[in-house]
């Protein structure tokens, strides 16, 4: 097993443990965060804040360096927003609000999330499989406009 795979396994594992400990696998907490007219639950803001802090330090450390296992860091973020970002994020947000699950927690809770968790995962993977042609159509619409 090479080092890249070992650290991918460790990163995924720590991500999953963090999602479980933070309560973000609980759809009631996620929907509680989105429900500003109900009993609003601010937990997600603590999770997001806690996650952004070490990652901001990591981006700072990455400056002018190379990844430990070689290769290069991801390209600087693209400043262009574009229709795909807006349309895609809106569709994602609708699904996130409906069920209270996003891709990370969906995988993390798969082993204890029951039948509903499996159904969500199957539908999400089907959506990911169906997305490239839809994205191409959005791009074509943008080019024609």
């Amino acid at each position, binding site marked *: 097993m090479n080092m890249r795979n070992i650290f*991918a396994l460790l990163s*995924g594992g720590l991500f999953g443990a963090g999602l479980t400990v*933070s309560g973000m696998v609980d759809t009631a907490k996620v929907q509680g965060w989105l429900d500003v007219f109900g009993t609003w639950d601010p937990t997600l803001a603590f999770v997001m804040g806690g996650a952004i802090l070490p990652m901001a330090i990591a981006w700072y450390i990455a400056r002018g360096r190379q990844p430990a296992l070689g290769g290069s860091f991801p390209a600087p*973020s693209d400043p262009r927003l574009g229709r795909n970002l807006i349309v895609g994020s809106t*569709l994602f947000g*609708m699904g996130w609000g409906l069920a209270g699950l996003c891709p990370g927690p969906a995988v993390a809770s798969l082993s204890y999330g029951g039948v509903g968790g499996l159904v969500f995962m199957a539908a999400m993977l*089907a959506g*990911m499989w169906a997305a*490239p042609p839809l994205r191409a159509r959005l791009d074509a619409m943008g080019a024609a406009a």
Partner: protein
Amino acid sequence: MPLDWIMGLIGGLMIGSAAAMFLLINGRIMGASGILGGLVDGTGRSNRSERLFFVAGLFLVPLAVVQVYERVDTNLTGNLAVVVAAGLLVGIGTRIANGCTSGHGVCGISRLSLRGMVATVFYILAGGVTVVVFKHLLGII
């Protein structure tokens, strides 16, 4: 401070440390939808094993954690039509937007990416409106 908020902060620090490790060691952005999507649509063929090991960790460690931690309930709705619709929207939306809560949210905002911040504003707004409409107006969820 309520215990839930403290656990949220601790869990968040773990999530951010995972993302930091994946960036600094493997040179990759820890975005769950990108890692999964690349496996599904074939765009991630060149680093397939790295993606599979990440997903394996993401699946297996929570499985171990819940054995010792406590009983965790996802409280997912029993309405399977809603679950299917939500899953499709999450799958399609994250791939069209090229990121989700981990990629755009955690990894994007932390590097002050405009795309990450705008995406996060839109999915939170869309999620909020969806909860208002489907919970308070329609009473479906």
